[in-house]
């Protein structure tokens, strides 16, 4: 994973738009300690898109970046169960749809992409 400025320049606060290249967080000194992989700048952009939100603290943004990572892992695993049942090794879109229908927690996703 390319390490962004080791000098500690907070790129996420500058709001750099890395549309093409992903901007992962710089790894901390502890080996393998990756706090969050999603770029905080993108998350902040999503948060600001909500017209009701005035401001969000840095810690809030961090959790909002980390949460979806856990969510992606969870939904990927659930979708994989469906693929396994179909004896497939490639996750398809319909596996995802099935997972969303099957799991209550994913109800908020229904009808969000069609």
């Amino acid at each position, binding site marked *: 994973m390319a390490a962004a400025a080791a000098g500690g320049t907070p790129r996420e606060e500058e709001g750099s738009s890395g549309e093409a290249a992903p901007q992962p967080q710089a790894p901390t000194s502890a080996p393998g300690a990756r706090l969050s992989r999603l770029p905080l700048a993108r*998350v902040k952009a999503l948060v600001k898109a*909500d017209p009701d939100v005035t*401001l969000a603290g840095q810690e809030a943004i961090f*959790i909002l970046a980390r949460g*979806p990572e856990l969510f992606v892992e969870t939904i*990927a695993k659930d979708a*994989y169960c469906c693929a396994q049942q179909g004896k497939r*090794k490639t996750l398809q879109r319909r596996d995802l749809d099935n997972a969303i229908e099957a799991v209550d927690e994913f109800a908020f996703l229904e009808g969000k992409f069609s």
Partner: protein
Amino acid sequence: MAERPEDLNLPNAVITRIIKEALPDGVNISKEARSAISRAASVFVLYATSCANNFAMKGKRKTLNASDVLSAMEEMEFQRFVAPLKEALEAYRREQRGKKEASEQKKKDKDRKTDSEEQDKSREEDNDEEEERLEEDEQNEEEEVDN
């Protein structure tokens, strides 16, 4: 240039990596499934933000804070995320403290460096002044003796 909030996608490469690490080796994911998950993640952020904002407004605050988001997770029935998120938050806070101390230390070192450079300069000036004073004193002594 997003027209709708849902169009603000998170980077595909990162999403793919998270998915691959969550699944056993040898499992693939179709492009459609991956982009659907990516959109789902964006929707998740938006939904969580909206929930968290409700908590902030309840607390009569205008700024979303960490506990608002954690409460939102519970509200969204993702309680199982709360514990790992709290751990991640602690680690993040430690890292921020470390970064802050590191940059303060750097600043202190920088100040100390410029201070010592200035001291060297002013020491030279002091020496020059002392020499002038000594000369004046000698002249004064001579005058007194005359009187």
